[in-house]
């Protein structure tokens, strides 16, 4: 592999796209998760939970637009192949995102009697979007196989991703609230963790079994040795977080953010494993990132903008999170 621009640019964009997806999964994960947890929360708690994500969700969802946008602009061939193969789940994902996005705003503005309706729609949209994302991940892992086995596996991953998002949501509630709701969230986190762990094991086992090429990437010496930290570290973090759920919340609210950060770390490890499995393919076993990439001169002009803007986005995202830091209070337009 020679290191010239036509080789490097698709690689850089694959990295950027991966980063955008990872940030999206972590950030929108917690607000989708809170939508899922709506099913288990009381009326007053729902208001607090909304207040905990209110200022953030618009920006969180924008990372999905960036991720899909990068797929669209940097790998147009893959964008078409993947999205036409996943037509119905993508459609369901979009319906879910539309429902929850508008329910979020409507529930705060309609007459009080209609609020319950929009709360239910918010839950429904969140769960549909999460399940659709999980299903798409499952189908993608199996190389866009939409046979019966693929669908079953997709359904399993869908449930587990929804659980993982619920865990993220619970962790965010632990960070942003106090009192009874916080205690409740610890219980939610513990339950969701079990399903999340099951899901990660299922995906990890199914991926190499489904693709001999991926099997060969993981189970050869010495790659096995270099890669072993990924599963081992994930398992350790899971076990540790599981133990933590029996001690939270702590006095002075210490470690309130820890569960969220731990889950983010686990997501990152899992994501790294997936990325290693698929590299260099963007459509599993069909299109490599170089085959699917746009012309180098077009990628170069996008990159020029990206290296300027992305750091600014990350910087002011931190700023926004700082402005709305601390425990969630009533969300008002003033």
């Amino acid at each position, binding site marked *: 592999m020679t290191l010239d621009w036509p080789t490097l640019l698709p690689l850089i964009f694959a990295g950027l796209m991966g980063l955008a997806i990872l940030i999206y999964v972590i950030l929108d994960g917690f607000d989708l998760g809170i939508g899922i947890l709506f099913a288990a929360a009381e009326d007053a708690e729902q208001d607090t939970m909304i207040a905990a994500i209110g200022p953030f969700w*618009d920006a969180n969802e*924008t990372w999905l637009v960036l991720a899909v946008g990068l797929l669209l602009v940097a790998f147009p061939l893959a964008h078409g192949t993947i999205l036409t193969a996943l037509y119905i789940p993508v459609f369901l994902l979009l319906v879910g995102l539309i429902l929850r996005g508008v329910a979020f705003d409507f529930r705060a503005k309609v007459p009080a009697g209609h609020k319950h309706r929009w709360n239910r729609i918010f839950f429904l949209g969140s769960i549909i979007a999460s399940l659709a994302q999980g299903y798409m991940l499952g189908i993608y892992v199996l190389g866009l196989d939409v046979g019966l086995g693929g669908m079953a596996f997709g359904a399993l991953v869908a449930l587990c991703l929804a659980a993982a998002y619920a865990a993220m949501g619970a962790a965010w509630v632990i960070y942003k609230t106090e009192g009874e709701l916080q205690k409740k969230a610890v219980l939610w986190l513990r339950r969701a963790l079990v399903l999340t762990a099951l899901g990660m094991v299922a995906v990890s086992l199914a991926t190499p079994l489904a693709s001999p090429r991926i099997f060969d990437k993981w189970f050869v010496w010495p790659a096995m040795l270099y890669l072993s930290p990924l599963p081992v570290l994930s398992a350790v973090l899971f076990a540790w977080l599981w133990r933590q759920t029996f001690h939270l919340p702590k006095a002075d609210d210490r470690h309130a953010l820890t569960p969220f950060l731990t889950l983010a770390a686990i997501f990152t490890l899992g994501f790294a494993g997936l990325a290693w499995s698929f590299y260099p393919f963007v459509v599993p076993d069909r299109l490599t990132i170089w085959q699917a990439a746009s012309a180098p001169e077009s990628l170069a*002009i996008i990159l020029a903008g990206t290296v300027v803007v992305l750091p600014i986005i990350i910087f002011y995202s931190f700023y*926004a999170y700082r402005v709305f830091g601390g425990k969630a209070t009533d969300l008002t337009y003033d």
Partner: protein
Amino acid sequence: MDPLILSRIQFGANISFHILFPAITIALGWMLLFFKLRYNATGDTAWMRAYFTWVKVFALSFAMGVVSGVTMSFQFGTNWPGYMETVGNIAGPLLAYEILTAFFLEAAFLGIMLFGFRRVSNRIHTLATVLVAGGTTLSAFWIIALNSWMQTPVGFEMRDGVAHATDWWAIVFNPSMPYRLVHMLLASSLTVSFLIAGLSALRYLYGDRSESMWKALRTGVFTAAILIPIQIFAGDQHGLNTLEHQPQKIAAMEANWNTGPNVPLVLFALPDEAARENKFELTIPDGASLILRHSASGVVPGLNDYAGNHPPVFPVFWAFRIMVGTGVLMLVVSWSAAFFLKRRHSLPRPLALVMVPMALSGWLATLAGWYTTEIGRQPWLVTGVLRTVDAVGPVAGSQVALSLAVYLILYALLLIAYLGVLVYLALKAAKDGDTSPLPGVLDAPLSQPAAK
């Protein structure tokens, strides 16, 4: 069923639903900034009440715009893979810049603008408002650049059936881009002006005589009255630009079947594409020649020069007439209202009654205008480069039919809910009048206590 026509209807429905909300947010951001700056300058809390009423509309419209916009970015891939495969090298960077420079600016600062009034200083809050308004406008800039390039593509070369950029400056500032951008920004401003004026008129009809109602009403009416003649001029210039670069579209807009001098202006007709003639025609002699060539003997292009290569005549002809007709109505209503507000300091009840449905006139004109220009681009997706029929994806017709049906139902319900909330918010504001509490504003007019 035919996936091509279903995909086209689906994309058309989607983009029609989507454009309703950017049409509001692009200009409403600046309108909110205006309310805010007036408040900063005068300390008059009525401006802040107007701000808080309309910032809710902004939040709701923004959310509707985001979710329908996400849908669009997916539909390029799910239904039109041929589009990015052919012109991805050009459309890609333009879309990427839209996402990078604009969308993020809006989305991240929106939180501070909407919910941060008590958490940051007034200066930062004003800055966030500026950034959100600037972000929405930048968004529009990039999208209009791409759309205009699809209408009048330049600055590229074809290699192996794929477009490659040769001159980015020419691509962004392509021949129709400045006209379309100005036309759209003005359209958005007029949409918002009429929306504000119409909902304020509704409050007026319900007996609200509060200062915040008057301020919003005057802002809406005067902005509309000033902008509508400018818009008519800008639209005329855009038309002349189209005549130069897309004559077949003008021929369809005017339902002119044969190239020649002394072409009449068709006021009413039912164009019949099979017979290639107009039925029930009502015309002004030499009108089209005078408008388009400024001379009665000016030669106007006809559809006979573009056989098999021109858009469907009926929808383009009528969409254009609906847009122009709405524009004329907007002129009459806004100037009458401005006259009464300026000279008589009152609003006659019948005029207020007319202004309420006119709240949606901007939407109607914007949609009709986009239908004119987008259907007017057919049969091409990118003029002269890619036909719409060649871009459609391999998805089965039944799947597209299913998604289309659900989208249509969903959009109809959401639109009803959205309009319901607008009316509810207006009536609530009418009931509260100048008595609604403004925490953090009344006590200290120019600053807010920052919450811990």
